[in-house]
Structure formats: structure tokens, C-alpha cells
């Protein structure tokens, strides 16, 4: 009889308008590395938040060591010995490493309740050394790199003798070398009897770490398999659930002359020597691991942050862009990664969002002509098939996919030549994804040059004409997409040699 340390049965969770988890089951053995895989929006992060107590399930039950438990908040999950390490580090940058490790369970003198710093520093140093880190725990957390901060988070989990450690996209922001370290540490944790759940949509993590894997798709539990039973294609099939090629529209591609060029672009400490060309009618994918610097390059092109070296060329002429309004004026548009925080004003009506980049077009001498705003919005929204009742709907009421279409609508009101889309299908459901690909293909056909930043290999292969792979701030490779494979792209992104992937 298997004794599971953690079990979920029939767990469901619904948010207004969205079914995040639907009748999901899960089991976790002590001393195993269990991988949760699935596409964006499959339900992985909701799943984790239920285990850590951030969300309370609407249906279903959870068992810990065979006994039913209710986890209603992070305190409950911590008491059981569940610790989570997130992608976005939730630490205190102004406090020392030791404090970050011990916050919530500080070592205090029993009598006077005084904090015993010496003991804590010593213990922290000890934990860090166990994990192979050599930095001084007295320094401020804010001075550490992301990889180091993750190690501190793991040390924190160890300091509370966590029995279950959850890692959310652990290698997302790590270099190749740092990922190797993390793999070593995770395996050691497993060997010491800790149960590790890690979430990732990267094959590499699965290959190197998993003992078993559970796949979620569209909020549903698809299955759990031992590592030996699974290979790439079966895993992708389980995650995607359909033939990969069906999702992407067939495109008639006529690539014309060069429309945009980046030469030797660099920003100190962020990226260096970035050069590529973009042609009319072309979709250029910009891919790589999270943290490779893709968004930073785009933001420098678009004028959000300045770059230190290099140049930009539009239609063969040298241009300078100091601010997004210059970029827009010259015909370069950007769909930001953070749709809600940078792309839309949620409190606003649709028409106000759509016209924001080009208010001058809908006004005379500064006076707004709301009628023309609303009519133009209606045209564009109907063109893109955004599901809404009226142009007065607030942007917040739209679904993820429709919100994304709304931002595209925003871009289309301006006169653009080049459109940069940063993770356009992130958090978008499958149906809307196809719609967005169709829109992209259509735009390419009309002569736009499109740069698409994406972490989804499948997407990159299905949609783009050429692929630029970035790694740690530099370009690793540029491929003709039709002539390349996922493995080649991954290898370039990770910087591994031939054997690296199958170890």
C-alpha cells in the first residue's frame, strides 16, 4: 500500500468566469521528485496555491499522511511542513539573508525572547553550505542574484524541516550552470526524504529531475506517469492534447524587403551584441529562457529603457527612439508581456483603451471627438471578433483572450510598420490562441513586420518564419524556422552541447 505524503481527490476551484481546476486528483510520495506539467493556463499555479493554502478549494479533499486536512492559509500549510519557492521571489530585499531564512521562526532565547543572531547566522551559514553556496548570510538579500535568492528560499524550507517543497518554474531565470546546481540540490533533497513538486513547462527539467509526472490540461487532470513511461512526444500530446500542426494556420508567406534592423544593441549588464533583421511580411520569433533578456531588448527598441550601444534602422534609415511615443510615431508598436499592468487600463471602457495611443487622431485641436472614437472602436473590434456587448464595456470584464485582442486593436489604430508582441498567447485559452495566430498571419500578409517573443517552442515552430534564440543576454543562434527542430532551439537556449539534453 503506497503511503502518500500528500493526496488530492476531486479538487475543483472556480473563479468568476473561469474554471481553474476541474476534479483534479494528485498523489505525492515522500522522497520523490514529482513534476507537474502543462501549458499556460492549464491550472498549474492554481493547483500550487491550493496546496499552499492561498486558495481554498470549492470541492474535493486533501489528505496529508493519510489524514484529511483543511488548509486555509499559508500558516496552515507551513505548519504541515509544506514550503513553496516561487518564480517571483517573495523575500525582503532590505533584510539580511539570515533574516529571510528565519523569518517567522526565529531562534530566540526562551527566557528573554531576545533574537539570538549568532546562532541564526551560524545555522544559516551551515544550511547554505549544505546547498553548496558560499556567500555570507549577513549580507542584504537585495544584493543577491536571482539564482542565489532561490537557494536562500530552499535554505528557508530546510530550516523549517519542510517535508514537501514546491518549486514553481525553478530554472526559469537561471543560467545553465545555475540550473545544474539546482538539479543537484533538488536530487539531494529527494535523497534525504523530502518530497519535491516542481512545476515547469520545460522538457529539460522533466528529463533531468522527474521521478513521476502529472499532466494538467485546461484545468483537468490528464494523468500521472512514471518517468520511464514517458517521452517527449507523448508528454507533449498529453499537454497539448491535439496534433501540434492543427493549431497553426497555414500561411502563404511572401517575404519582401528589409523593414527593420537592429545592429549591435547593448545595455550594460543586461544584453550585448544584439543584431537581427526583420522583413516585411515576416514573423520573427525571439525566444530563449526566461531571463535571457528578450523583453529587455524589446523595451529598449520601443524606447522604454535606453540602450548603451548599437543602432536601429527603419527601412534602411538610421533612427533614434527615446520614448515610446517616438516609436509609435515612427511606426513601431509593442504589445507588452504584462497585459493587465502595461497593456490595458482595466477600469476604462473599451473605446478609451483602444484610442489611447493615438488620441490625436480622434481629436481636433485637443478636443476629443468621442463619437469617432466609438465608431472606430466598433469597426476594429468587430474586425478582430472581440466578444463584448458594447464599446462601453469595461476592459476588466473581458476574458484573457479578448483582452489580448483588445490590445491588438489598440495597436491597429496606429499606423504601424513593425509590431512587437511579447508573449501574445500567455494566459490565453486555446481557442483564442488560434485566433491570435490568425490575426498575426493576416497582419504579416498585409506587409507588417512582426517580432514575436515567445517561450513556447511549439508556438515558435508553428508560426514564425525565422527564430532568434537568446541566451543570457546574447544571441545564441538564428534559425530558419522551417529548417530547425525544437531540440536545436532548446540547445541554443540552454547553451548545451549534443549530449546535454539526455543525461
Amino acid at each position: 500500500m503506497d503511503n502518500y505524503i500528500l493526496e488530492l481527490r476531486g479538487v475543483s476551484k472556480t473563479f468568476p468566469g473561469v474554471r481553474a481546476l476541474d476534479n483534479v486528483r494528485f498523489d505525492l510520495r515522500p522522497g520523490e521528485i514529482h513534476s507537474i506539467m502543462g501549458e499556460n493556463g492549464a491550472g498549474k499555479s492554481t493547483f500550487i496555491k491550493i496546496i499552499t493554502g492561498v486558495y481554498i478549494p470549492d470541492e474535493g479533499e486533501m489528505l496529508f499522511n493519510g489524514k484529511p486536512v483543511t488548509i486555509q492559509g499559508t500558516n496552515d500549510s507551513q505548519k504541515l511542513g509544506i514550503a513553496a519557492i516561487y518564480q517571483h521571489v517573495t523575500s525582503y530585499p532590505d533584510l539580511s539573508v539570515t533574516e529571510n531564512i528565519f523569518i517567522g521562526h526565529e531562534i530566540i532565547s526562551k527566557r528573554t525572547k531576545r533574537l539570538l543572531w549568532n546562532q541564526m547566522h551560524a545555522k544559516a551559514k551551515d544550511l547554505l553550505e549544505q546547498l553548496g553556496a558560499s556567500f555570507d548570510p549577513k549580507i542584504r538579500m537585495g544584493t543577491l542574484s536571482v539564482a542565489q535568492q532561490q537557494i536562500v528560499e530552499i535554505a528557508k524550507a530546510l530550516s523549517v524541516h519542510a517535508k514537501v517543497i514546491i518549486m514553481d518554474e525553478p530554472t526559469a531565470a537561471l543560467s545553465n550552470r545555475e540550473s545544474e546546481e539546482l538539479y543537484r540540490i533538488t536530487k539531494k533533497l529527494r535523497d534525504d526524504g523530502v518530497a519535491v513538486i516542481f512545476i515547469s513547462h520545460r522538457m529539460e527539467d522533466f528529463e533531468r529531475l522527474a521521478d513521476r509526472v502529472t499532466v494538467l490540461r485546461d484545468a483537468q487532470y490528464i494523468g500521472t506517469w512514471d518517468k520511464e513511461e514517458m517521452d517527449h512526444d507523448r508528454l507533449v500530446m498529453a499537454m497539448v492534447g491535439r496534433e501540434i500542426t492543427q493549431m497553426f494556420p497555414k500561411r502563404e508567406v511572401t517575404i519582401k524587403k528589409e523593414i527593420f534592423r537592429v545592429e549591435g544593441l547593448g545595455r550594460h549588464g543586461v544584453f550585448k551584441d544584439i543584431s537581427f533583421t526583420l522583413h516585411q511580411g515576416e514573423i520573427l520569433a525571439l525566444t530563449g529562457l526566461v531571463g535571457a533578456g528578450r523583453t529587455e531588448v524589446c523595451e529598449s527598441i520601443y524606447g522604454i529603457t535606453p540602450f548603451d550601444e548599437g543602432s536601429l534602422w527603419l527601412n534602411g534609415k538610421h533612427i533614434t527612439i527615446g520614448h515610446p511615443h517616438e516609436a509609435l510615431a515612427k511606426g513601431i508598436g509593442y504589445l507588452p508581456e504584462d497585459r493587465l499592468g502595461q497593456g490595458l487600463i482595466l477600469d476604462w471602457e473599451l473605446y478609451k483603451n483602444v484610442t489611447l495611443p493615438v488620441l490625436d487622431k480622434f481629436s481636433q485641436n485637443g478636443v476629443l471627438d468621442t463619437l469617432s472614437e466609438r465608431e472606430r472602436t466598433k469597426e476594429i473590434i468587430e474586425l478582430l471578433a472581440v466578444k463584448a456587448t458594447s464599446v462601453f464595456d469595461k476592459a476588466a470584464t473581458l476574458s484573457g483572450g479578448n483582452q489580448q485582442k483588445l490590445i491588438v486593436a489598440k495597436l491597429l489604430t496606429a499606423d504601424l510598420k513593425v509590431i512587437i508582441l511579447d508573449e501574445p498567447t500567455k494566459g490565453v485559452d486555446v481557442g483564442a490562441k488560434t485566433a491570435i495566430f490568425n490575426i498575426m498571419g493576416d497582419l504579416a500578409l498585409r506587409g507588417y513586420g512582426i517580432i514575436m517573443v515567445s517561450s513556447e517552442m511549439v508556438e515558435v515552430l508553428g508560426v514564425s518564419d525565422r527564430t532568434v534564440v537568446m541566451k543570457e543576454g546574447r544571441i545564441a543562434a538564428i534559425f530558419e524556422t522551417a529548417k530547425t527542430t525544437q531540440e536545436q532551439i532548446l540547445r541554443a537556449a540552454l547553451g548545451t552541447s549534443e549530449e546535454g539534453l539526455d543525461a
Partner: protein
Amino acid sequence: MLNLRRNLLLRAERFRDFGLLVFIIVLSLVIQVRNPTFLTLSNINTLLVNASILSILAVGMMMVLIIRGIDLSIGSTIALSGMVSALTVSLYPTIHPVLSILEGVLVGAVVGTIIGLLVSKFNVLPIIATMGMMNIVRGLTFLVSGGKWISAYQMSVPFKKIATGSILGINTLIFIAVVIYIIFYYFINHTRTGRQIYAVGSNPEAAKVSGIPKTRIIWMVYIFMGALAGLAGVLWVSRFASAQGDTAVGYEMGVIAACVLGGISLAGGSGKISGLILGVILFGILNNALPLINVSPFWQQGIQGAVILAAIIINVLVKRSNERMALRHRVV
């Protein structure tokens, strides 16, 4: 290369304290040259006594700034607590001075409780809450006093001796300030709750998720500030032997200036007692020395404003250059 970056940033913080100390020494020497009575024992004593009330308030303001707040009402709280305790003494001259002090602290704590409630539970912006309370409490002071002053002859001798007397050979005010510093130094560095204040200021969202009682911490900090302002109020009226409706108007600016000079970050989450002490001393020197080198008192507010502005801008510039240096050392 990571080590280099870490060392640079560590050094930048020590550098700031060190630089401030050097500046204080240089400034003192310059003033001494202009007016040799500056560095005399009696002047230094006056300086310290004057600075002690400010320093008591600065400790409270430091904690408020750490949790990303501000308190503009402390001048009014000083006035109210001072007025209430002075009134009590004028009516009951036999009251023990310690009770007077406690009374003042209580008045201040009540004000702080209200402010803390508004900020932590009702999400009122600290600037709005404390600006409103600043005026409410000032109005209350006038109400309570009936528009009249309480002057020296109405105060009992023991009451007046609070500020003029000495304990263990040191002036009482300085003694109280030192005690307060020792208490709060221990509190924010060696107790769990004290460190939680820093956590809340450094990353409020994470604090909530980690189970730190964020609301209670914010409330507590404002109560402390109020209580310290209340204490300062009693000490103030004792020192100047007079309680008026317009006591300490605008005094909060000086307190904030001292904190800013001491390197307390306005973004919250960081601030050290050592820096604070230096900031208070520097500010105290400015206040003390300006009349000595014949700067008219009417220049005081203007200089204060310029100093605050310069200090916050310099803080930003230093931070920016640190970040730029750190980036430069990252090899891509």
C-alpha cells in the same frame, strides 16, 4: 565578480555613515573657526539638550518611515500632550512629575491609536490621515486651553525640574533620550516584532503572505510615534516652562529632516539607528550653530527646506549610481 558587486554595495552603506561623520566633524571645525564659543562644554550641552527632544521624536519617525508611512501630526500632538499635562499640573500642583509624563504619553498614544487605525484598517493614506489629525489635534489643543497659555508660575517646581534637573549627573532630557534609544535599539534589532517592522516596510505583500500581522504592526508603529510625541510634549513644556496653543507648529519638518539626513530611506524597509543618531546630531548642529554664526532665525525654515530637498535628492543619486555600478559589473 559577484563578490565585487556585493562588496561595493556593502561599502556604500558604511560609506554613507562614515561620510556623514566626516561631514559633521568638518562642519563643526568650520563653525568653530567662525565662532569659538561653539565647541565649548556649555554650548555642547545646550546642543544636546535641544537635540534630545528631537531625537526622541526621530526614533518614532524612523519607524514610521520604515513602514512607508509619514506622520505630520506630531507637532500638534506635542502641543496637546504638553497642554494637558501643564493644565493638570496647574490644577493639581502636588502631582508627581512621573505621573505627568505618563499622562502626556497616554495623550500621545491615543492620538497615535487613532491615526494607526485610520492607516492600517481603513486604508487612509498616511499623509491624509496625519494632515487631518494635525489640524484636529491642534484645534483640540486650543479648545482645551481655552485659548490661554499656561506659564511658568502656574507650573509646579518638580514639573519644571523635569527638564532642568539631572539624573546621574546628566541632564534629565539627555538621560531620557539615551534610555529611549537603548530601548528602541534593542527592540528593532533584537526582538521578533521589531524585525517584523522592517519586513513590513521592505515587502508588504510578502509580509501578508508570510503570516506577519501587517495591520497590527502598522498600527503599533503609529501608537509608538504618538506615545513618543506625547512624551516629547511634556518634556517640551517643562523645558520652556510654557504651554501654548501654537507650541511646536511645524516641528515635524525638523524631525523628518533629521531622519532624511540620517539616511532613512523614504521607500521604506531600511534605516539604522546609527545613521539616525548622526542625522539628529547634524540637524542639532545646524540649529545650534546658525545663530552663532549670525544667521538670522528667519533663515531657519528656508535652510531646513533646502536641506531636506538636497538630502532626498542626494539619497536618490547615490542609490542610482550604486545600481549602475552593480550593472556594470555584471558580465553579459
